[in-house]
């Protein structure tokens, strides 16, 4: 069980969160303007899956916000948690 630091609630147990998958840029209007190839890449190919995983977690049993963390995939150390929405 990880301890995830929610930028709004502080340190909380992993079970308060839902895993939201690897982070990717906001979908926005990409689907409208991208070429097929660009769209497929956006859809299927992760940004990064190395030493650091950038991932979303949904604090569903907490403040309800989505947060983005950078987690070291070897130590589970979590850096720079931030809210996932920019507004």
């Amino acid at each position, binding site marked *: 069980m990880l301890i995830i630091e929610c930028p709004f609630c502080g340190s909380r147990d992993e079970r308060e969160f839902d895993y939201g998958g690897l982070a990717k840029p*906001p979908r926005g209007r990409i689907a409208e303007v991208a070429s097929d190839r660009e769209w497929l890449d956006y859809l299927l190919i992760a940004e990064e899956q190395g030493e650091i995983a950038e991932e979303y977690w949904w604090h569903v049993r907490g403040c309800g916000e989505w947060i983005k963390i950078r987690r070291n995939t070897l130590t589970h150390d979590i850096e720079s948690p931030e809210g996932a929405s920019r507004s």
Partner: protein
Amino acid sequence: MSGSRLPTGGKIDRDRTLAFQYNGQTHSGFAGDTLASALLGSGLRLATRSYKYHRPRGIVSSGIEEPSCHVHLTGDNASGSEPATRVELTDGLTARSVRGWPSASLDLAACLQLAAPLMPAAFYYKTFQWPNWQLFEPTIRKLAGLAPAPVEARQLDDLKARNWHCDVLIVGAGPAGLAAAQVVAEAGLDVLVVDQETEFGGSLLSSSQRIGGVAGHVWAKGVTDMLAAARNVRLLHRTVAWACREHNLIMLAEHPVPGCRVQQRVWRVRARTTILAAGSHERPIVFANNDRPGIMLASAVRDYAVRYAVAAGRQIVFFTNNDSVYHCARELQEIGMKVAGIVDVRWAVSHDVLTQARGTTVHLAHEVFDTRGRRGLAGVRIRPVTGGRSTRISCDVLGLSGGWNPAIQLWSQCRLPVRYSDSLATLVPDGKAADMLAVGGCNGAMQLQEAIQEGISAGAEIARRFGLSLKQMDPPVCDSRRFTIQPYWHSRNPSKADKAFVDLLHDVTLRDIHLAISEGFSEIEHVKRYTTAGMALDQGRTGNLNVAGAVATRLGKDIAKVGTTTFRPPTVPVHFAGLGQFGGLGQLPYRTTPVAPWHISQNAVMYEAGARWRRPGYYPRNGESMHECVCREANAVRNGLGIYDGGPLGTFDLNGRDTAGFLDLVYTNVFSTLEDYRGRYGLMLGDDGLILDDGVSFRLGRDRFLMSTSTANAQTVQRHLERLLAVDYPSLDVKIVEVTSMWMNATICGPFAREALEEIGTDIDLSNNAFPFMAIRFGRVAGIEARVARVSFTGELSYEINVRSRHLAKLWNHVIESCRRFDITPVGSETNHVLRVEKGFMSLGHEVDGTVDAHDLGMGWIMSSKKQDYIGKRAVMIRRQSPRPRRQLVGLLTKDPEAVDIEGAPLVDSPVDERSRGFVTASVWSVVHNRSVALGLLEDGRRRIGGSVLVRECSNPIEASVTQPCFYDPDGSRLRS
């Protein structure tokens, strides 16, 4: 008492004699004994047999690292294998050695020794191929395996788990751990101190070293008492830290005091910092026949004498490459035991070390290279390390000390670095970590003073990290003991025919290691896997480094370059029963609606309907079969009136300026054009174009919608929507509230539904004009505030009467009572399934299998072409460009009208087809046609309507005609009526 018990001394209670059984024989010991000390105390040396060759074996260590004598307890405490050194003696204990039948001393399988040359390491990979392995496997399986399989479950109470939070967890209460504990406790931090032994003190318990002018164990007792009195400190005895998990979650296993029913307690400890003070384990030296009963670790010989007043033998010889046994020898002499000699491989030993063993013959620059004795050690053979004439020494105990291995298991589990220390000839932690500090023996501190100092410094550092100030603490002055060591892994050239064991529990010999290397398995992990060294119950605590040493020697490599195998959790075997108390579907209760008791009173067969909801499947009446029952229920809906409990459908209230636009984004069809209080069926895709969910949403106002989802997918849908709002479209103003369990419903359906609702009583105008299909109305039903929706999953006129959950039971009873004249019939999910198949309505669990899209389902109309974008649109467009033929939803009517049980069967064109063209997604007995009807996904299915296809029901092809996927009221006039 007979045996080898010393007349005085020891921490046993000589007034309490305990009788116990071992391998069927009765023995006795004292309170305070372990099974191992009691066995040794009653003079039993041949305590067990070895794994592969069934050689006689004795007890080797005094602690957790025991590499030889493992037993299984019988009776109420039966629990697989345990090291005899960890079993506290209780009155009436019965135990058996895991090896040796009928007993360890008369082991019939010992004849296997004769076949030993044919069984080198990994011999099984080279044999048993002919005619095939499966012929041999059952026999091999019976021979392998240790304790018998458990038969009875334990009472849950007997295995417990606890959770704990603390500032500092200290693992190990030896001198370093106690010193650290003292500091952090005084600083006022919350401290948990654990030790695997029954008493705190660690190495001090059987050593004569002095601290601050008093005997070490007295000092330990003093500190322990002080800690025990402090309110911010908790002490746990008999407790091993067995895993270090993510974010410093440390797992402990606590053995309870003897006699307590609890067998083991698992602790999950969230420690902000951990001090690892777990000490070190002595390791043996390898030479031919180094496994006879009586050959032990040097420190164990002393521990048994000092702590349990047990003389492991009368004539003791030590064999070493380091200084520690000299102190051991002195301590034994001090309590009147005789040490017949010390064999030391080193050329020189410092004077003050030598003087410790005054009165003992010391054979410098000699090695033990072989031993004698049939059922126990009778003597050793020694020779100069440079070669030359050998001599014999008679002895019944040989104490070995090849050096000390810091207990770095937890450290290494945390992925923290270790390094090989030349001066200590062992692996030690390398550096400090943010939330774990290693101190004392497990950090390679061999000096008592150094260990205590490390403990104090670590404590102080942690206190500082917590921002606490400390008063200066002067370390107590300790006896100092030199420690030097000369690496020595095994005697030179153990003779070919004899066995020199590197792993006693798995019977792995030096020759096995050499064989592995000569066959190319020279990576340390290969050696381990090839020979299985280090993989037994003791997890190679005493043996692993010797394996690495042997490999280094053989390859002429530096041992630091050979590397080590990784330590994996757990550090000691742990019972499963104390684990797994959280999580697991089995533990989550069912969800039911408020009218579940009514369903059960009506004899409903209850099913799990997804997302843990339990719903009625069907309601059999007086002896009806399921088939009869479902037909009766279905007929009621088609021709009269049915009622079902539709509560568990996921329901969400969406509200906010951008809600309509948001629904246009998440559904394939358009919602923004919907009029107030009207609803629309929508299909929701993932961005991969696959169907995520479907359901009806109603508009309740300009900015407010009520969305329903399938029961099982409610959470997935919610996450999907919330993620879009939070991550991808944060500027949209939409708020989502789940209302699934706030509103529950009774849905009445069938041609009499309107009349029935009037009968029930409502202020809503029910005329088709005022309240058409796919509309929602707010009003009162049976005097209760209600939202009534005209949706239909059955194809009949229906009203879904939603009320607050607390009113549902009242509503339900009222409906049943007032609709008796319509012969209102409760229907379950089985009937719903029949009705929806007759109608050709798709269901996620059946027709949607991760490949189809809306076009395939004949719902191309729902894929809006007006919208620029919606989730999944792009992917569906791309997927549709594929030349692969699409599987489309069709109806299937088997030639044989009785053939119903064909769900899931592949569709083929000819019985010898190698590839399926589709499959039957659902098949039911239709009450309107009085025959079977089925739905299927079929390649190019729509074009094949009117033709036929084969249903391949396991080698039994059934012909079926392909039809429109709707068997009832195709233009939907009934549900709109």
